[in-house]
């Protein structure tokens, strides 16, 4: 068996961090090899070494049996290695063809794009990756952009393809397309490394699996057949993981949030919400499913008073649309923003300051013009204990916390205000399995306590675990609202691509 890639004893050290600790990894020709691990386990680092972006501190790298040393991505490309990054490396203002030609020596000086458009169309035919060559990147969907990334590597003659979390941004149907493309590629003799932390995908598509934990290999190239998600999770986390938090049965109460015919523009001034109507009842979680960028962020922003809109938004009968965020806060709206590092918290301020951001105006923490920091610190300490926030003390700046602990700080602040309505956007994104568990439990506790929760997530599993009902948003419109018990991933997936509109069940019409 020829090894396409052999990595022996790879060590990568960053200031203060040992990102890869003597890692071994082998890729066979024609296989799909999954590289699994939590955030920060060192997957991307290892692959960036293979792609020539980082230089290893120690260890040997062999490609097709030959020892190699990459000084730049160009060397790796020359060795037939192509990487599709998680955050696409595409220039939005340039065309598909321009992006594919970027960095190549041909054309030499004059571009003559139409000639290359033709070449790229031929390449597209070969692998069934269709995307108009003259389109600008910003005009393309995420799935299409990913195709451009794959074409980029194929055009450079790559026979080893590294896909860094390729499914994170795709709708279920697009994932199926991608899987088919990857299989077609391995059939043509190419090898694929598939980085992921979605366990079921790994068991579905990979031939073999390598698992990393905290920079070390915990399973090297084991056969994917017969592996269970539970076994993989244990290898990733180092302990057994409770998979799904349990949701109790609960009859929802009165309508808390009512969104009626709301439209809004996004940052670029393009319509992002087109006549949205929703309602969430007390003790109910309404999940919003959709591919990223279909209006989810804008929906959260109009409800929390951060974005102007047309239409009516009421919380317990009070209209809060187009009014300052303080009106929403005073009416019991809590917000778990998508960007926890910049919107959800002030990174350079302490845990204390971050926890009192909502209640500093009134007693006991404040009196309107000054803050009693003794009381504030006690308040923060209480929350730190109650929510099990791991930090040496409450003076630590928020930016020093891990994602999971920072999210707990935000949730602690929001929950301590006893919200009637919670808007949670991607609350568990990028967190490890353990933190996901505790954040999800906290949300369910709020549901028990009678809060109405609007949960916006791109993780379908999370939506199915937590939600009572799921609404699917596509290009700023609600494709349909379905009860979680009466639907499945296929149906939601179809609606996410806008291909089907479910009539609103009468039970949900308020």
């Amino acid at each position, binding site marked *: 068996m020829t090894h396409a890639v052999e990595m022996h004893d790879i060590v990568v050290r*960053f200031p203060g961090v040992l*990102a890869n600790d003597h890692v071994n990894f082998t890729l066979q020709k024609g296989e799909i090899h999954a590289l699994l691990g939590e955030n920060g386990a060192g997957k*991307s*680092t290892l692959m*960036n070494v293979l*792609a020539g*972006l*980082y230089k290893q501190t120690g260890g040997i790298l062999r490609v097709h049996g030959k020892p190699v040393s990459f000084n*730049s*991505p*160009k060397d790796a*490309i020359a060795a037939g290695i192509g*990487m599709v*990054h998680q955050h*696409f*490396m*595409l*220039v*939005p*203002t*340039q065309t598909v063809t*321009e*992006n594919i*030609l*970027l*960095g*190549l020596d041909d*054309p*030499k*000086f*004059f*571009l003559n794009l139409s000639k290359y458009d033709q070449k790229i169309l031929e390449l597209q035919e070969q692998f069934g990756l269709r995307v108009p060559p003259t389109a*600008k990147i*910003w005009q393309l969907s995420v799935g299409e952009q990913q195709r451009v990334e794959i074409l*980029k590597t194929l055009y450079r003659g790559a026979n080893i393809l590294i896909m860094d979390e390729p499914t994170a941004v795709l709708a279920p149907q697009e994932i199926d397309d991608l899987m088919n493309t990857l299989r077609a590629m391995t059939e043509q003799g190419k090898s694929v490394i598939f980085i992921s932390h979605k366990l079921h995908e790994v068991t579905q598509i990979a031939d073999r699996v390598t698992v990393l934990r905290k920079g070390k290999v915990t399973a090297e190239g084991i056969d994917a057949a017969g592996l269970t998600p539970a076994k993989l999770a244990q290898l990733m986390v180092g302990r057994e993981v409770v998979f799904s938090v349990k949701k109790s049965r609960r009859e929802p109460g009165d309508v808390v949030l009512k969104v009626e015919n709301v439209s809004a523009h996004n940052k*670029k*001034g*393009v319509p992002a919400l087109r006549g949205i109507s929703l309602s969430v009842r007390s003790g109910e979680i309404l999940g919003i499913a959709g591919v990223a960028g279909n209006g989810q962020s804008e929906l959260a922003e109009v409800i929390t008073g951060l974005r102007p809109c047309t239409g009516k938004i009421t919380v317990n009968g009070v209209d809060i649309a187009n009014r300052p965020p303080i009106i929403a806060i005073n009416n019991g709206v809590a917000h778990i923003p998508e960007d926890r590092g910049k919107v959800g918290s002030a990174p350079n301020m302490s845990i204390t300051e971050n926890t009192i951001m909502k209640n500093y105006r009134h007693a006991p923490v404040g009196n309107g013009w000054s803050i009693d920091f003794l009381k504030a610190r006690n308040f923060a300490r209480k929350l730190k204990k109650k929510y099990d926030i791991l930090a040496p003390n409450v003076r630590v700046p928020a930016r020093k916390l891990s994602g999971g602990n920072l999210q707990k700080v935000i949730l602690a602040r929001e929950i301590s205000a006893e919200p009637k309505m919670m808007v949670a956007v991607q609350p568990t994104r990028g967190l490890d399995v353990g933190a996901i568990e505790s954040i999800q439990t906290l949300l369910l506790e709020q549901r028990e306590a009678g809060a109405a929760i609007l949960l916006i997530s791109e993780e379908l599993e999370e939506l199915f675990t937590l939600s009572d009902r799921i609404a699917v948003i596509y290009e700023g419109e609600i494709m349909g609202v379905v009860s979680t018990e009466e639907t499945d991933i296929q149906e939601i997936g179809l609606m996410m691509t806008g291909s089907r509109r479910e009539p609103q069940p009468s039970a949900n019409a308020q």
Partner: protein
Amino acid sequence: MNLVTILHAGMATGTVLLFATIGEILTERSGILNLGVEGMMLLGAMAGFSASLATGNVWLGVLAAVLAGGALSLAHGLVTIHFQADQVVSGLALTFLGTGLALVFGEGLTGQNPPLLPDLTIPLLGQIPFIGPSFFADFNVLVYVGYLLIPATWYYIYKTRPGMHLRAIGEKPEAADTVGVNVYRLRYLYVFAGGCLAGLAGATITLGVSPGWYSAQTTSGQGWIAIGLVIFAQWDPVRAAVGSYLFGALRRGILDLQGPATLLGFVNPLYINSNWGFFLKMTPYLLTIIALILGARAAKKKRLGAPAALGVPYIRGERGL
């Protein structure tokens, strides 16, 4: 006042702005904001004038100006690309550094008479009535160089491989880096190119358009207008040309307005009290402000406007961790 005179003078004055603006466009397209244009221009103006005087060869003067502007810009490159310091602060410092150097080394240059750029009339084109005397006759050669620079830069940016790389490193440097484009080296190159063109703009003043060395008054803020024009032009060389010549004509027209006693049959207030002229001198700066406001609005529209990575240092190691 005669329209041909204003147009003629406008094209000449506009050439100064054109070089500086196109230079800054190249720099900013690569993702580096260089606010030191005024300093580089003044240093170029001094170096060109002084070298032409010393060597007796105006072309050596032009070369000295280009290299002086370019050399000064590399200081900005070092600070912002290598050390990743704040580009605004560094650019402002560069203005002071360039101005200071120019004034120190320019001492005693006032009143000197070095060889100047030769004037040239284009055969045939120069003979066309109105068009000829306005655009193609009796200009110093650099004006015609400017004419050629506009389409050349446009073609370079949009239709060539290095131009494509230039656009990429200013929009998304990490995308260029991952396919082996050397972001740091190219940014240095375009910072240098911008400096060279700012220096050339300076030489255009002292050796062509308004010969002589008048210390800091030589450039009198034209470098700042060039920075405003970049935004006005939305980083496009053809729009930059329109803006440069328009502003050039305007500067010249304002001077002329202070001349005649009557204007279109009315008493010219500017003639009665020359202090009124100060308000008119404000016009280019007011227009720059308006251009900046309009530019900001245009930039909000989709995908037109500033390179996305403008002003953001590129650090490879910080990605993907």
